[in-house]
């Protein structure tokens, strides 16, 4: 229990970009385990509160199926429908598009069921992201002249999860945090890499953003590849 409290306290100081918090994490006996504990605790707490937020959002929203039925019943009484519905094929196609559109709208409606699954999925996602980003950032930092070990790098980058705490505000339905969690997280990662690897500001900045640039390049290449295949299919067909 003391370990969790200590990790959370460290996370609080890391949130305020205090370099000594990152240095303390780097010097910890086992920074990876300490970081993992912090990530899991933050992930579970945020997911639990987000679940409450989703329940409140669901309770604040009128039933979508009732609205769908009302709209359909009124629409089928409109003058244009009387003409159009004489063609059975039109009715068939219309109903298919109608159902598809409402199922798409349904995807954006609050769903406490999927929020419940997030209690497991969110910490898991945070851990996977931390490991992936940590590994790539470590390689770039070392390439740029950094001195920290992988374990130390993962330890300090675990502190970059601290801004996720802001997601507890999702307990309020329709709360939008914009990019504040991501931006703050990047600033924490920069401070962590700079402190742990003892890099000057410019190299630390490159080590922080290069994993994102790499991910962006991979996404763009994938998009180009996908559109290339699509174009070949269109031209071929």
């Amino acid at each position, binding site marked *: 229990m003391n370990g969790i409290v200590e990790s959370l306290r460290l996370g609080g100081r890391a949130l*305020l970009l205090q370099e000594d918090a990152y240095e303390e994490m780097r010097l910890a006996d086992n920074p990876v385990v300490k970081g993992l504990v912090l990530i899991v605790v933050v992930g579970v707490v945020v997911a639990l509160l987000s679940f409450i937020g989703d329940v409140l959002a669901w*309770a604040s*929203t009128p039933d979508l199926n009732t609205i769908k039925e009302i709209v359909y019943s*009124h629409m089928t009484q409109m003058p244009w429908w009387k003409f159009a519905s004489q063609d059975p094929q039109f009715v068939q196609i219309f109903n298919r598009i109608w159902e598809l559109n409402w199922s798409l709208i349904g995807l954006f409606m609050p769903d406490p069921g999927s929020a419940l699954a997030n209690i497991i999925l969110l910490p898991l996602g945070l851990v996977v992201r931390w490991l992936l980003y940590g590994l790539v950032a470590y390689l770039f930092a070392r390439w740029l002249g950094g001195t920290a070990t992988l374990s130390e790098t993962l330890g300090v980058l675990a502190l970059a999860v601290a801004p996720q705490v802001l997601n507890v*505000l999702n307990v309020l339905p329709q709360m939008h945090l914009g990019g*504040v969690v991501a931006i703050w997280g990047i600033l924490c990662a*920069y401070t962590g890499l700079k402190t742990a690897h003892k890099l000057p500001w410019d190299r630390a900045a490159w080590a922080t953003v290069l994993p994102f640039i790499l991910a962006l390049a991979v996404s763009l290449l994938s998009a180009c590849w996908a559109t290339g295949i699509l174009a070949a299919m*269109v031209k071929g067909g």
Partner: protein
Amino acid sequence: MADLLRTLGRAMLLDDQAYQAWRERPNLFLRGIVLIVLVSLVAGILSFAVTLWLQIKPVDVASIEESIHQSLEWQLRFNPSFQDPAVRNMAEEMLNAIVPMITDIAAVQAPLPRGISGFLTALSQWLSRAMIAVGGWMFYGALVLIFVNLLGGSAKLPDFLGMVALYAVPGLLGLLQPIPCLGGTLVFIGTVWGIVVYIKATSVIGGLDAGRAILAVVAPIFVLFLLALSLVVLWGLWLGFIF
């Protein structure tokens, strides 16, 4: 507290000593966050009140019906395609079907009482604005700091962000936005004043002269614009190449 307010007031008048006094206060970064959040919340308090009122008052079907009728009147008067009697007739029949539909939709109740869900929605929107302001302050501040360093200045990230947070204070003029005619002008003055304070704060914390501080503050706008433009052009070229 009085001392803090005096410092903030003097900083708005670009007094060097006030900036030094702000810089020497402990936990500059935390102070910056609190300042941005407080100013955003205060500036948005009227907007919060209006949203709250709109959210909790019962749906006024009659006023919705009236606005739809008004819109149709405008179309009938000015839209040439509505001059055709058949189109006109169809639009009126549609209207007769739409109004009862809106009445029925408005009657659908959410599980939570309207007052509670309305309050939660208004509160969320109010706090969201503050959080988005914090995100913008951090994002732009980090970019400006890069240019400060490139132009020969230097500052630690948390100290820099804490210092430039002073730019938010003239945003309090946003509180006066609802004043007819004058409101928009006051918001514009607040925005320009905020930029001037940002430049001054950058100059003091980064150790740059005024010219280089201006360059550091405006450069990210151009860089972001050029970056977005080049991505769009590249994407367009790629699509042009493959299709």
